[in-house]
């Protein structure tokens, strides 16, 4: 067998030998993580303690939400209204949010590179374009790995339909836990037997595990099985799970968020932040309006407006807004050009992202899109820079590197935008 080209230098061999050994010792990385050890070098002065991501899956139209252009060729029938912020108008279907605009930092010139839903949301959620060689961690997983929480899982998603993990190379420990409409208690979080019977089961399990340990300590220690069991037991027993019980809230508060799955989840997100969960994500889907864009947005705005505005007001009233970063974003925006059947297609060249709360300087607008629909917004903000800004707000250094496989990877390659930060 002859190969046309010499392969593999000595240094590369050494390098790979090293990295393959380190791949085998992955469980000790997990051991460190479980023991709560994190390096201090990746920490910046903390601004926010928790993050709430309002994820608009499908890609909302900037023109029908935060960046209307009424009376132009791209504006369509969407009207605009004045907001708390002088000179800034948003879509007329968001009247309650208009009252909260003084809290919001609005970026109208976000630019991405992807026009496919999966690739676009990967980019928005991780700041990297998808590659085959590595899975980057989502923002929430990075928060989960860097901020301390209580008994509950550190990254909780409401209403997500896809079951994909998002912790990537950070490890399964920081995957998000996906739960449904808080009208029902979250799945598998309460024992399926009485608590004392569960305790009996666990003490039996532990005595059998110690038998196994006597024969095969490696298997028991390596799997960290017992620690995971203890974590589940802590969740099952924890008072913190009451945070999921939105029924405990006064009817007036619930009404304020709106009687929708999204509204209820936003309320639960606030309760979870109160008990110290580092990141909560709430999803509102169906923004993908290739047809009947205006009707769809009218409907979705009716859900979004009360929930988002109540969340901001509620957090502020409880003095939680300064320590909670709120992010409103989808994977991209929609084309300025109105297509057949009143549709708008995918558009990454200038779309809106709204930020508020911890670490963010509210009451400002960055960038502007062209009413004629040019793909070059003024003052463009890349997703990488946006992501770096958000990490900064959480007190996490975006330049933190890890060796993954054979190369160092930064949490994010962007630079924080100073004027967005407090």
């Amino acid at each position, binding site marked *: 067998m002859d190969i046309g080209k010499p392969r593999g230098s000595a240094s590369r061999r050494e390098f790979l030998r090293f990295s393959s050994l380190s791949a085998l010792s992955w469980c000790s990385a997990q051991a460190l993580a479980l023991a709560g050890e994190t390096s201090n070098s990746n920490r910046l002065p903390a601004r926010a303690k928790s993050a709430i991501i309002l994820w608009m899956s499908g890609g909302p139209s900037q023109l029908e939400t935060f960046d209307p252009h009424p009376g132009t060729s791209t504006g369509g029938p969407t009207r605009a209204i004045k907001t708390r912020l002088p000179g800034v108008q948003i879509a007329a279907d968001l009247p309650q949010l208009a009252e909260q605009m003084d809290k919001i930092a609005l970026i109208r010139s976000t630019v991405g590179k992807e026009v496919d839903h999966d690739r676009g949301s990967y980019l928005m959620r991780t700041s990297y374009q998808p590659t085959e060689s590595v899975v980057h961690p989502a923002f929430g997983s990075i928060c989960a790995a860097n901020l301390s929480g209580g008994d509950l899982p550190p990254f909780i998603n409401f209403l997500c339909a896809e079951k994909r993990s998002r912790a990537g190379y950070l490890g399964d420990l920081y995957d998000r836990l996906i739960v449904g409409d808080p009208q029902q208690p979250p799945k598998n979080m309460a024992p399926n037997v009485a608590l004392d019977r569960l305790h009996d089961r666990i003490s039996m399990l532990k005595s059998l595990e110690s038998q196994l340990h006597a024969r095969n300590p490696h298997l028991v220690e390596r799997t960290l099985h017992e620690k995971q*069991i203890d974590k589940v037991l802590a969740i099952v027993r924890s008072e913190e799970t009451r945070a999921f019980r939105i029924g405990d809230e006064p009817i007036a508060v619930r009404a304020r968020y709106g009687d929708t799955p999204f509204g209820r989840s936003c309320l639960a997100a606030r309760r979870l932040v109160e008990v110290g969960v580092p990141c909560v994500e709430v999803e509102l889907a169906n923004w993908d309006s290739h047809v009947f864009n205006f009707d769809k947005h009218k409907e979705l705005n009716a859900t979004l407006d009360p929930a988002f505005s109540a969340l901001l007001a509620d957090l502020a009233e409880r003095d939680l807004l300064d320590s909670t970063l709120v992010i409103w974003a989808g994977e991209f925006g929609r084309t300025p050009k109105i297509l057949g059947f009143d549709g708008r297609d995918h558009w990454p060249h200038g779309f809106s992202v709204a930020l508020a709360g911890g670490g963010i300087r509210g009451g400002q607008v960055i960038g502007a899109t062209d009413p004629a629909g040019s793909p070059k917004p003024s003052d463009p903000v890349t997703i990488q820079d946006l992501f770096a800004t958000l990490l900064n707000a959480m007190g996490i250094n975006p330049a933190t590197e890890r060796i993954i496989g054979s190369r160092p990877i930064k949490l994010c390659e962007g630079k924080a935008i100073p004027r967005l930060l407090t």
Partner: protein
Amino acid sequence: MAVRPRLIDALAGFAAILAMGAWLFGSPANPIVGLSTAPKSSVSEAAARIDVAIESHWKPDIQPSPLADDLQIARRVALALRGSIPALTEIRWLESRPQATRLDEWTERLLGDQCFADYFAERFARALVHSKGSDFPMPFRRDCFLTWLTEQIAENRPYDQIAHDIITAEGVWTNDPAANFFTAHEADPIRLTTRTARAFLGLRLDCAQCHDHPFADWNQRDFHGLAAFYGATKLARFSTGIYDVEREYSFLPVGQELRETISPQVPFSPHLLSRDGHPRERLANWVTHPANPYFAKALVNRVWALLFGVGLIEPIDDLDARTELAGALDVAAAEFKRSGYDLKHIIRVIASTEAFRRQSAFHADYAVESEAVLAAFPSTRLRPEQLARAMLQTLALQKNDYAESWYFRLAEWGLVDELGDKYEEEMEPREGNLAQRLMMMNTRSLSLPLDHHWGGTAAELNLLSKSPQECVETAFLICLTRRPNDQELRICTDLLKDASLPQRAVRLQDLFWVLNNGSEFCWQH
């Protein structure tokens, strides 16, 4: 190779519906009768050669783990070949066979079962058509490809022919299922080249897509020269099929302003490439050429990883990494080639090695080291689908038949859905997340069938066992494929000893819960 499927574009939508109908109501293929093509001696000789290659790198002071007992090995083989653990009836059958041949018979029995082809094809397909994105808007393209691959594996078609078919596939996605290798990647030369290099050559050329590879000798021209073979491949309207056009391929060289046209060229062994012919035909012949230094190794390393949980070389699609075990891979790949790319043969060989039949490491101090050189069987976490199938198997005394029964497919789908993560990071080492542990400990999906009011294994055991000891022993066999040792027997019988029959049924449910939540159940070892 230039039939344009446009005329039948419109029909493809109907075909999709028909395909779904066939998938829902179609009768499963008949189980294939297992016929070992190679005489037993050739299998054990090849296995011994691999063992010699592995052991030649051991340090003199290494303490290899002793061989595991037959039941434990049988559990490994079942988890590797059909993703579930042996049923009680199968354990009884195994123990009735002569000791000298029972493991070989067991492997043969599994290889002849449709469950093997289904499961192995699914795991294998992830190297080829899994993409990070979902399959929207054509969710059945992957199923179509998978069904085809399953048939190839069930028939034990030589692997070089399967690979050749995939690389040269064309036509409408419903009629020519292998063409979904291309539709799954939107016929994008970049993604196709990445997949081809990784799946068929075990090489990560993708780093060289934008820049020269930082550590290996691959450069950008290597990647795009390979991509040029796919440059003329086009996806028909509405993603319904694959055909070729006259088109040149170009790329943007690093640091340049203008794109450069590049003609198809291979990154190594150029003398194996034929001069003329259709680009993809040339590529397929080059990839599967017996003298291609990577093709056989890439497959054998992947099969090895499916049996052991880790490849001889890791990451499994980065064969450039040279490790102590690379020599063993060379030996195994040579055997695979010699056998005419016989998939079942190489599985038999790998499953017969001493390396596969060793116990996992006992002493935490040198476990990682001894696993790394295969002086001990590596312990790895079960994949979600293995865990789901194993849990479902503990609910029955007989084999759950996924090829035959809709109940099990739905139940498995539900559990895997709860466990999450079916497709992503197929071979990465994972420790399991909290959602999965929450599900294992608290799910109601499993408590219902275990409940004694509804029948199920706990109730059957309770009624059929003569003594508490027998209950415990059988529960261990069902869940852990082994008998309890004395202490375990004592701990568990204490639980059942003084209980009335209805109480005992409830406590047996507890015992099943405990056994299914232990580290021994959740890890391949």
